[in-house]
């Protein structure tokens, strides 16, 4: 690692309308270092790297590469200067193959100026191999799981042979094994002298790989620290601007009565889809129960079928024949569509909020009220007063930060967007809440708020089924954890006396002695 900064940003400022996203930020990346960017949702991390990667061109301040000031006209210019970026939102072309996506914009040519497919495939295999990604480069990108797409995105950035590699939450959709492989790759890059900018909300990761960490708060630098040598609490208090203790007074799951009234009873649920979609693990003989006031976790490796199970329970799964029985509050429950599920008192927070849950341009208030319009209107006419009161209530209850209820959802930070989806589901007063990766991309403070919220909801008697890839989350928040493997239940564990290893073992199909493993 040299002290010579490859990229230096000084006094970078950017506002979106009235919102100040960056207020004079200094930031630099040296060759061979991993420089982490930390901060709450909306602190300005993505905005900063968007400036650096040429996506945002109208900013104040200067960006210098090797000491000489530059102003990129667009992403291509930044790439030409050796700055490669893995953006937060997956930006790939579903209709092209993996290989075509990898070389998009830089296709190898034959002498006839046509695309050299051999070279393209060779490069693709090489790159994916570096990440240990076992993917056929000719597959259509759209047929890949989200995690696999994330790997392609990473491989694509690596392909640029950049001097600076920016990663904006690259691990949000990755499971443990992939994360480890990614870290190995990052270590290799660093040895080659590549400067890495790394954004993540997972503190463990930062501590593991970052040399330096710059903490942003409300668009300004709150401090720069050495993560390995700095107390985690201090970093967090830099991020949130107050002491960290207040954040983590989340009591462990409040112990409810041992024999809760069963709310959701799933018995041998299987789905035989009408058309088999590759990469989907449909529920096969799933049996589990969620009691009223109970939080049950769903664990599993990437593609274990958690999402599919939740979708099926919400009436949004693959069309097809289903067998087995599901009872909700003692009544048979087989929703034909999400509408029916909502009517029966089941809410669902999907895993991909931008694609499945939000219209970014629509006002926050309307987004919150959408699912509950039925109860907010009389004879089809929305009662504004009632709606306003309901929205206001939920925004306050969940502490949603927005300029106003009329502000477009897209202008909120990721964590607040997630809370908007929560609010929408809570407005319909569900008995059972299905959550799919509800804290993905959510900052540490907001996460804590979400956990508190879940506990409160459970205490009020709601049943919660929570799918997550973060084991600490499952163990910390849930009463029980059901582990899925290839669509079937591999284990049903009590959170209090299980460890991350237990879950992993079950998820990977290794029997664990003494546990309720199937």
């Amino acid at each position, binding site marked *: 690692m040299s002290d010579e900064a490859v990229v230096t940003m000084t006094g970078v400022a950017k506002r979106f*309308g*009235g*919102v100040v*996203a960056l207020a004079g930020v200094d930031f630099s990346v040296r060759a061979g270092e991993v420089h982490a960017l930390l901060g709450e949702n*909306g602190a300005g991390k993505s905005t900063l790297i968007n400036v650096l990667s040429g996506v945002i061109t109208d900013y104040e301040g200067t960006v210098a590469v090797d000491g000489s000031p530059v102003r990129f006209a667009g992403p291509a210019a930044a790439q030409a200067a050796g700055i490669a970026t893995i953006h937060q939102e997956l930006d790939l072309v579903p209709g092209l193959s993996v290989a075509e996506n990898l070389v998009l914009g830089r296709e190898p040519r034959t002498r006839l100026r046509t695309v050299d497919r051999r070279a393209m495939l060779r490069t693709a295999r090489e790159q994916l191999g570096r990440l240990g990604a076992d993917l056929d480069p000719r597959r259509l990108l759209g047929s890949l799981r989200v995690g696999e797409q994330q790997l392609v995105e990473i491989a694509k950035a690596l392909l640029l042979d950049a001097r600076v590699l920016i990663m904006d939450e690259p691990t949000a959709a990755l499971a443990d094994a992939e994360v480890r492989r990614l870290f190995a790759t990052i270590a290799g890059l660093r040895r080659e002298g590549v400067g890495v900018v790394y954004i993540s909300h997972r503190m463990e990761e930062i501590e593991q790989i970052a040399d330096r960490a710059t903490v942003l708060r*409300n*668009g300004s630098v709150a401090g720069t620290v050495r993560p390995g040598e700095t107390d985690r609490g201090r970093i967090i208090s830099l991020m*949130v*601007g*107050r002491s960290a203790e*207040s954040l983590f*007074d989340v009591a462990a799951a409040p112990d409810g009565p041992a024999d809760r009234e069963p709310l959701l009873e799933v018995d041998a649920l299987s789905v035989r889809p009408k058309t088999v979609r590759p990469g989907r693990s449909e529920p096969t003989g799933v049996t589990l129960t969620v009691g009223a006031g109970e939080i049950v976790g769903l664990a599993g490796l990437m593609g274990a079928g958690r999402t599919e199970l939740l979708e099926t329970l*919400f009436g*949004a799964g693959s069309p097809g024949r289903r067998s087995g029985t599901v009872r909700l509050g003692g009544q048979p429950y087989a929703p034909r*569509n*999400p*509408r029916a*599920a*909502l*009517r029966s008192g089941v809410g669902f927070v*999907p895993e991909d909020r931008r*694609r*499945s*849950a*939000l*219209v970014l*341009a*629509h006002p926050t*208030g*309307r987004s919150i*009220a*959408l*699912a509950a*319009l*039925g109860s*907010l*209107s009389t004879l*089809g*006419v*929305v009662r*504004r007063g009632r709606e*306003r009161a309901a*929205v*206001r209530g939920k*925004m*306050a*209850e*969940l*502490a*949603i*930060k*927005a*300029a*106003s*209820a*009329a502000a477009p959802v897209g202008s909120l930070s990721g964590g607040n967007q997630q809370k908007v989806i929560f609010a*929408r589901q809570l407005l*319909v007063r569900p008995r059972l809440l299905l959550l799919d990766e509800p804290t993905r991309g959510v900052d540490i403070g907001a996460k804590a*708020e979400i956990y*508190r919220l879940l506990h409160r909801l459970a205490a009020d008697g709601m049943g919660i089924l929570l799918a997550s890839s973060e084991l600490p989350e499952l163990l910390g928040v849930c009463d029980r954890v059901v582990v899925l493997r290839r669509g079937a239940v591999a284990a049903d564990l009590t959170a209090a006396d299980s460890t991350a290893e237990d879950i992993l073992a079950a998820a990977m199909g290794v029997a664990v002695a003494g546990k309720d493993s199937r």
Partner: protein
Amino acid sequence: MTDTRTPPGEEVAPAAGTVGLRGTAARWVHRPRSRRELLDRLFAVQSLFALVVVFVVAIAVSPRRGGEILFLDGGNLGNIVRAVSEIGIIAVGMTFVILLGGIDLSVGAILGLSAVGTATLMVDSGYGILPAVVVVLAIGLLFGALQGYATARLGIQSFIVTLAGLQVARGLARIWSGGLGIPIAYGDGPKEAPPAFEFLNGSINGVVPVPAVLFIAIGVAAIVVLRTTAFARHVYAIGGNEKAAKLSGVPVTRVKVAVFAIAGLLAAVAGIIHAGQLNQGSPNDGAGYELDAIAAVVIGGTSLAGGSGSMGGTLAGALLLGILNNILALNNIDANVQLLIKGLVIVAAAALQKLRNTVA
């Protein structure tokens, strides 16, 4: 903890400092709250603004007769609204369809079919006004609903469904009428329509033409529907993100069918007015009206991508086109030059629209 990202002087939902925010209700007031929102509001009436500009220009370039500005003549203004009333009514239905993220190319043909139906039923089949109108409206509704069903259920893009629907409706109209216009004569005899039907040709107080009144009434009703109903929210939601709408429990298929049914119904209304205005039901009428209606919607600021736009804009857009047509004709502009001018005005309006989106 204060949120420094919020511009000063604004009410904000108090940020959560500690657990348990219940009770600290933030007020959600309905006033413009920042420069940005103010701009938004200003631009929201952008199509109205364009309308005013065109109106003023029209006054300026209007031919005069003895000091009187012909364009401003009461009768002329009435004529303008009467002339756009059919396109306008169609455009109201089209607005719903476009907000939904679809498009309806069949409305012009449905208009022709409905005009033929009205004339045939009253003249040849001896129906009274009410039965004839009801049957024709039902046909339009059904035709639209069928198209909506095909889009929603078979998942075929509405462009294609309605392109096919256009041909089918036109074919049906020609077959029904035998290829020729069915003239409507009024009287009590056989082969005569009830004289009351002629009211579509009249005007209220001799000033405001009846079709204009109907157009305005339908437009205002649509504004109210779009502003107040849950149905409208569903339309916006589907147009914005269909998957999200579905997962939020919006009955997507039903809403889609309803929207296309409304478009078909309003095209039928326009067809009945058309027959009444022209005293004839001609199977070839209404050709190309769909494009005029789409132009009105887009000039009115509704995005073809779906999910954003307003009904007031559509009304303004339709009137703008009507004024444009009128002033070009009043000044006896060459028909070909008219084509060029209209093309450029459409692009200019869309560009203005775009500008708004970039600023907001």
